[in-house]
């Protein structure tokens, strides 16, 4: 550790080793929670979005209902229902599920995954619906089957159209994950709340964590900009 940093740490009462370690633990929890829920949410959302574009109301109706409910209610309510509700399910305490859902991490992960999957489904659906009909006609004319068309033509093209909206959803999810601290999880916000109550120093505790979130946000923005550039490479104006 550089000397000036060591000196700085020795000179103040709040940002000592244990405090920094608590923030670090919170950072790890937040990143795990957000990353896992986004990955799982995306995996769930792709098939749901394809179902949502189906013309059969028996297929598209239930998916519409699911996204409508999850997008129309606050994530906090969803988290409470899942966190407090799971324990109330008759007989769950005797099954192996209880070993998983007893910890606050997994109910929170489930709530976040279901929430982000609902939003992502609608983003992908919008992108699929906007596929130029000529692309689909051309694929049909080449004799591509439905599955091949989906895999080779529609989904890659939808990914390009959806990536910008999806990057907003990712940042929204990072920010929304702060509410995990209300169900006893010590994520970044949870760590800040602990440190606030230990030292009664709201500015130090919360501004520091705000800076950490901001750094995470800008890293995500940067990464998505790179990804967009990569995906939309062919549309870049020819320079020179």
């Amino acid at each position, binding site marked *: 550790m550089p000397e000036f940093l060591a000196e700085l740490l020795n000179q103040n009462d709040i940002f000592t080793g244990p405090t920094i370690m608590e923030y670090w633990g919170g950072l790890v929890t937040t990143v795990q929670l957000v990353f896992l829920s986004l990955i799982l949410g995306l995996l769930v959302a792709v098939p749901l979005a394809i179902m949502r574009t189906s013309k059969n109301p028996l297929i598209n109706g239930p998916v519409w209902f699911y996204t*409508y409910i999850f997008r129309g209610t606050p994530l906090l309510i969803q988290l409470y229902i899942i966190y*407090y509700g799971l324990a109330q399910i008759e007989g769950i305490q005797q099954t192996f599920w209880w070993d998983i859902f007893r910890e606050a991490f997994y109910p929170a992960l489930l709530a976040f995954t279901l929430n982000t999957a609902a939003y992502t489904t609608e983003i992908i659906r919008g992108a699929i619906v906007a596929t130029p009909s000529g692309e689909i006609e051309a694929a049909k004319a080449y004799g591509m089957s439905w599955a091949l068309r989906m895999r080779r033509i529609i989904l890659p093209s939808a990914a390009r159209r959806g990536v910008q909206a999806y990057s907003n959803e990712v940042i929204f999810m990072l920010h929304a994950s702060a509410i995990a601290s209300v169900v006893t999880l010590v994520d970044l916000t949870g760590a800040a*709340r602990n440190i606030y109550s230990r030292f009664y120093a709201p500015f130090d505790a919360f501004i520091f964590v*705000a800076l950490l979130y*901001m750094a995470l946000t800008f890293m995500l923005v940067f990464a998505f900009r790179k990804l967009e550039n990569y995906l939309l490479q062919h549309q870049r104006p020819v320079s020179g």
Partner: protein
Amino acid sequence: MIDLKGYGPALLEGAVVTIELAFFSLALALVLGLVGASAKLSKSRVAIGIATTYTTLIRGVPDLVMMLLFYYGGQVAVNNLSDYLYDAYDIDFFFQFDPFISGVITIGLIFGAYMAETFRGAFLAVESGQIEAARAYGFSQWRTFHRIILPQMLRHALPGIGNNWQVLLKTTALVSIIGLTDMVRVAEEAAKAERMPFHFFIPVAFVYLSLTAGSELFIKWLNKRANVGVVQGS
């Protein structure tokens, strides 16, 4: 009817608090959004800098963290100010920073930043010829704004305002975390006391769902009205 175990009236009062909170926050957000958009479109570098810093900061920080900062930090700041005033000028001043005010300030500030972006785009969508014509007729700046720009930009701003409102409505649930007795808080206490989470949270979820669904219809109607004079290609 479902039996709310005597928590019915409290839940109803909580719902009223939620709606009040949402409307006050919306009002603040609209004002901040207009100011922010004007600043971003102005020629002053300082104004542009302040507005850009504001919208960037807001986008980087979670709403809950900001709310905690304003609620706990606001009280400390008020306490310090009150100590200082008492010591220096013998003025007895005290002010309790309550969750409702913290909530309105935080939500207003956050959505003010989003509204600023919405309004900026809408302002730019008004044809410059319209503004030039108004100036040529000798309209003052204020008159140009409220007779020419505002009515025309509203049409472009409405969908964005609508989206922001839907998100804002759901963000109000967070204020229960800093202790406001809105319907989420009442439901949480009832659910813990009666050990019946579904029983209390699902009705609250339905209230939110009907609020968002109702807003959706209202925004659609407003949009139709605002676009009355526009011929839409099919």
